[in-house]
């Protein structure tokens, strides 16, 4: 099946895929730290292992972005 992953169409041989499967295939090491939209709708993080991704679907994922400025500066 063909799925658009982060804007790029990709072909998968698997008959069924979940959001969690796709994140693993996409080498996301910390799936708990990404937000996912499937066909423009947010997917609840707890539902990644059970949410099916179907042929012609569009899935986007973005990492959590955050940080802090003051404590523990890195000396590089």
């Amino acid at each position, binding site marked *: 099946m063909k799925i658009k992953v982060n*804007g790029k169409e990709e072909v998968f041989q698997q008959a069924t895929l979940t959001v969690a499967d796709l994140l693993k295939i996409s080498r996301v090491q*910390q799936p708990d*730290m*990404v*937000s996912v*939209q499937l066909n423009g709708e*947010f997917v609840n993080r707890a539902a990644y292992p059970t949410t099916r991704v179907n042929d012609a679907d569009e899935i*986007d994922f*973005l*990492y*959590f*972005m*955050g*940080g*802090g*400025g*003051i*404590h*523990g*500066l*890195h*000396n*590089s």
Partner: protein
Amino acid sequence: MKITRGVLSQIIAHARKEAPLEACGYLAREDGIVHRHYALTNMDHSAEHFSFDPQEQFAALKDARASGYELCAVYHSHPASPARPSAEDIKLAYDPTISYVIISLAGGKEDVQSYKIVNAVVEHEKIEIMD
């Protein structure tokens, strides 16, 4: 990282506007040069921390994509500390594919630096300003 002088000025202006709170956003490139920034809301509304609003993140992603741009970096400001990643910056740098740009306003002086952070290893990268 190659960035236009205009975008560099805009993100510094964003940092100044938000100070003493931290400012944050995305940088987007085309043909290897950052031509656009997306100023996002600091959900923490803090002088010491920032986090993105996921709704705004996806809106930026889709706008950039529709315009032929690629999100290539995250920027945030350090209103009162140097342009080096903090321990928290490093801990929360989950995306190994992008650059992390820090704008310091410490001491009233502007300093902008860029880094790659992969598995908590910080690598400084040169910023080339394009006119």
